[in-house]
């Protein structure tokens, strides 16, 4: 049964509409002992981590899903006849970074951090659903407050916000950058 359980989980990850979490797998496989499900799941992830497969299991937004390897991108695009995907503008990326690190955050705060008015960029990100409105700040004018969305995580292939470097790590990166530039 164990081998079958692994196969079963494999099919679930395969058909899932979104990154599938272990919790949801357990919920679906309620008639099986939890530990067995967990073991089978770990076995599955391990078997996919070998380099012999064209498809991988990746972690994204708190769940697992199948994905192709980046190196096959050109042929896949050739098959699907899809042009290179549009990338976000530097302004959009910077605004996203500000939201990601300072959330919950208002438009005024983002503009202050970036040093330029960010309302337009913010609108674009909202349209793309990379950020979302989560409420209002209890301050004069009651401005709307923003957070990054689930889609933000999947778009950048992040499992959670914790995947981003911490503020301390960032400071270290910046220091290194400074020294290397001087050489």
């Amino acid at each position, binding site marked *: 049964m164990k081998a079958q359980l692994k196969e079963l989980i494999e099919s679930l990850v395969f058909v899932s509409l979104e990154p599938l979490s272990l919790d949801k797998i357990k919920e679906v496989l309620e008639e099986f002992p939890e530990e067995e499900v967990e073991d089978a799941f770990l076995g599955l992830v391990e078997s996919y981590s070998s380099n012999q497969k064209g498809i991988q299991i990746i972690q994204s937004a708190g769940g697992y899903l199948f994905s192709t390897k980046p190196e096959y991108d050109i042929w896949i695009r050739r098959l699907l006849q899809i042009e290179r995907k549009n990338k976000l503008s530097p302004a959009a990326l910077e605004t996203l970074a500000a939201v990601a690190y300072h959330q919950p955050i208002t438009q005024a705060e983002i503009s*202050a951090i970036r040093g*330029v008015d960010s309302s337009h960029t913010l609108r674009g990100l909202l349209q793309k659903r990379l950020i979302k409105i989560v409420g209002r700040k209890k301050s004069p004018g009651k401005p709307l407050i923003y957070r990054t969305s689930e889609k933000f995580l999947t778009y950048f292939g992040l499992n959670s916000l914790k995947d981003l470097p911490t503020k301390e790590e960032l400071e270290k990166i910046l220091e290194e950058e400074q020294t290397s530039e001087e050489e």
Partner: protein
Amino acid sequence: METADCYQVKLDVFEGPLDLLLFLIKKKKIDIHDIPIAVITREYLKYLDRKDQINLDREGEFLLIAALLIHIKSQMLLPREKDSREDEDDPRRILIDSLIEHQKIKAVSGLLKDKEEEESQRWKRSFTPPLSSPEEVELAEVSLFDLAQSFFTLMKRREQENIKLIKEKEYSLDEKMKEILDELKAKDFLDFFVYFEQQESLEEALLAFFSILVLIKNRIVVAIQEHLFHTIKVWLRKEALETKRP
């Protein structure tokens, strides 16, 4: 049309007003924590001199920073009392903090760019076999924005039906019913659509609609459509008035 970020400087080596400052700081190889403002303002003015054309929008940002620099400079020149909060009060602090913050954000956006690049090359299955018992179609992610948007799109849709919205006025069904009855007493009948368009807000229109429905249901008025696709006329039932209180 160039939009919101148009006052960003776009050169190979740097971009944006704060970056200019950062760039200058790096170029002078000075410690960010010890900014000699005079040098920086001089550099900045030289930079402006070199430009043949000045975009006011763009330079406004620079001027803002220049003003900030001058302000800081003047504050530094004034004799200051020593106290424990000195570090927090140090005007340079604000600038330094925002510079560091901005540098961090820059670093993260570089990182996000790489992630985006990699992720865009990973392909996932975005479809699933259909279920035999079709449930409602689901939505990507539901946020407050979605909620508000769907409401206001709904309103837009209604708005196009010649009904204005907004207005904070409070109406009650009873008041509206009375208003309709008064109108009916004054005229012989009400043209349903004309009456509808006279309503100031969507709420009021809705209320009018419900009032009429209630009046019809209670057999106080009668609605008659003479031909298909024709307007509906609302008539008062004479006998209803005598037996029922409006």
